[in-house]
């Protein structure tokens, strides 16, 4: 098993709510930020070779601005934007989902809300 299927399965094993939508994985994060109440959903595009290769884009709700470059329209719809934020030190292997989760969480924590 690999790719999107593996990504969703690995995140489920880690206790994350994860669903498939428009060929992407939408993951529910619990982010400790006073200005973001409740669970937050983000999206990822795991390639066929996940976990050897990480997802490229982070899809986030439109109200989040992630520092480090401009966003692009998201395949998840007009309420979303996608950001090119690659994992800085991807090692792949069995811990791929955990690595991505930590990366996504750190991006959301540094984001500003508009």
């Amino acid at each position, binding site marked *: 098993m*690999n790719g999107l299927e593996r990504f969703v399965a690995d995140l489920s094993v880690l206790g994350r709510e994860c669903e498939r939508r428009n060929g992407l994985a939408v993951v529910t994060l619990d982010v400790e930020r006073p200005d973001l109440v409740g669970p937050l959903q983000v999206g990822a*595009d795991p*390639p*066929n*070779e996940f*976990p*050897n*290769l*990480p*997802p*490229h884009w982070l899809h986030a709700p439109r109200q989040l601005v992630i520092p*480090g*470059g*401009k966003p692009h329209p998201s395949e998840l719809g007009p309420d979303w934007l996608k950001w*090119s934020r*690659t*994992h*800085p030190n*991807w*090692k*792949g*292997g*069995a*811990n791929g989902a955990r690595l991505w989760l930590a990366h996504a969480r750190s991006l959301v924590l540094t984001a500003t809300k508009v």
Partner: protein
Amino acid sequence: MRRLSVAMDGATDAALSAHLLRSDGQEDLCFAMWRPSTGLTRTTALVQDPILPIPGERQVHGNASFNPEYVLRAAREAGQAGKGLAFAHSHPAGSGWQVLNSGDALAESRIANVARELTGLPLIGLTLAGDGAWSARLWSGAGRAVRPLGCESVRVVGDGFRITFDDSLLPVPGIAATQIRTVHTWGERTQAMIARLSVAVAGAGSVGMAIVDTLARTGIRRLGVLDFDTVELVNIDRLRGASVLDAYVMRPKTHVARRLLEEGSTAAQPSHELHELSICESDGLRRLLDFDLVFSCVDRPWPRHVLNTIAFADLIPVVEGGLSAFQNPDRSLRNGYWSSTVVRPGRPCLVCLGQYDPALVQVERDGSLDDPSYIENMPTDAPLRRRENVAALSAMVTAALLQQFVAFVARPSGFGDPGPLRFSLRDHTIERVATVCDPECPYAASRGVGDARLDPSARHLRAEEARKHRAHLPLQAGIVRVLDDVVRGLQRFIGRLAG
């Protein structure tokens, strides 16, 4: 008919040899597993996981024989692992490729049906001679119609590259007058081996083109070049064999490579395969799997990822190198580094060596790396933004790759490749890079999986666009190209008259 070959890594070769080449000089036998690696014209059986006999499963009496229980156990284990069955035996008094004798053929034919039925794959028969040379065949057909199909070669990818050829399928080439100096350097035996290797060069840029020229002059008969790109004016300062005219008439780089091969080859009957393909495309990857060894002359993450994948998954060693130059604030040269390695099981993979960032593979795949606005967003010191390249520095990378290649295949005094090396231009030092693969490294873990690898290929829009662009040559440039073809055709004709 498909070509067949066998490959194994150094650890498998060592384990099988330790069992089969006995200190008492008697023959012995054992089983192993194998997985297929399917190229466009060649299937390679990747032999792995020896299944050694437990007491009572085989008898040694000068020759060796096995009990049916051993065959069934080995075939079941291979089948449960989703792999094929290989049967290996030794000829301690033999040397070189061993022709299958009638007794051995009968023994293997009796296993062939069981192997196919319990594993779904044909039996691979292997013979190990006393000098460590392997020979192999694949048992095709079923029932009474089973028959051995000859494999053209068996390669061992370990600390150094060892390969044996079936001389009836790949005859030893004669030594031409143009090769005498080469043969004086490393001898006829090494030349006979190197000349019969099938070698691909991925990327015909400044380094790749020089490698192509050198390998052709060395007398390697079967050479492949894969590159989708077009000659441009910015390439002329360092692209061997290319001219301003090539840029004007939009020649593919493989066309220039073909000229170099035709002009420089010293092989008697060269077989050159030029493909206007990226190795990231499915067709390019399948063609790559037909070769024994690949030179990596690419500089982007995705093709490096493809090569990193097949080096481990398909046991095709990849000779790889790279260049980085750094400038002072006044833009003068501060230092330059070039690195080289042979990527293979037992050596670090390109990700663990830091030669490319796996996160950028998908970025390249979705076209972002060809989007100027995306590149502008990258840090100014990002490797993908740097464009440094000088003919003299390219020549140094070329030399570093050829050094790795010669050490790996010619094995001076029995030594193989030195491992990853890094050269510093300013300090004039060579450093051995002590990196090893991360324990979780997925590339190292994929050793020998062959066709079960995660497919690294996909549509390559940049390659498709380059081919499409070349197909729409302006009329004037088209006329010039026809004239150039005529002139070069005449030059070739005159060359043949002289030769």
